[in-house]
């Protein structure tokens, strides 16, 4: 299982955060919001003065690249709880394969 934290921050900012958190996960940098746009989670002109950022979102993907679980909220303060994430991972382990996606994402 790979774990990625994705934001629009450039690599140097992400590295600073990773070091501060002493985290072992990989921080991916979507500075141009390309993946955010594919997922329709770009928050344009966020009120924090940081420009476009990601709507907080979690997506669990299986080995075939198929989405198996998602989390979103209507407030950025609410996060996917660890228990909820672990339950989704357990379900994925119990049913590890889906042969192909039901549809391609709308771009």
């Amino acid at each position, binding site marked *: 299982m790979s774990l*990625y934290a994705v934001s629009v921050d450039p*690599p140097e900012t*992400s590295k600073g955060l990773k070091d501060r958190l002493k985290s072992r996960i990989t921080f*991916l940098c979507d500075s141009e919001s390309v993946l955010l746009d594919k997922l329709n989670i770009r928050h344009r002109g966020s009120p924090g003065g940081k420009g476009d950022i990601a709507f907080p979102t979690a*997506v669990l993907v299986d080995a075939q*690249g198929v989405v198996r679980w998602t989390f979103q909220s209507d*407030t*950025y*303060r609410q996060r996917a709880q660890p228990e909820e994430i672990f339950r989704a991972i357990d379900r994925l382990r119990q049913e590890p394969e889906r042969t192909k996606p039901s549809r391609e*994402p709308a771009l």
Partner: protein
Amino acid sequence: MIWLSALVVFGTVGVILANLGAVDSELRLGFQQMIHARIPWLLLALLWGGSALGIAAILRKRTGYKFAVLGLELAFTGLISFYFLSFSFLPAHELAVGVGDAFPDYALLDQDGRLHQADASTQREPALYIFYRGDW
């Protein structure tokens, strides 16, 4: 009674200020559970209850310092309520993929400048992607 109301309101504000800028592992006094609730009713109840005590104190006996304390309490209570009930809510949006859909291809740099790619031809392992707002 005005000092009790001040203790409740400013104590609650103090807990909020003490946790500003903290990452989850640094949050104290159960704030992690409160701040990540969709609507943190406990915090709001403390602020509203404390302010109500302040108003009751004014109604019992009106003095200048009580008005000053209550004014501050209402200002903090109003600002924080606005943040929790309005400002921190997001515009309507809908995730473009659902369960059973293909996760989009991507090619992104990591924190060390290494390229990570995923597409239909890439050998993958299951992955959890957490999209966050960035470091402030």
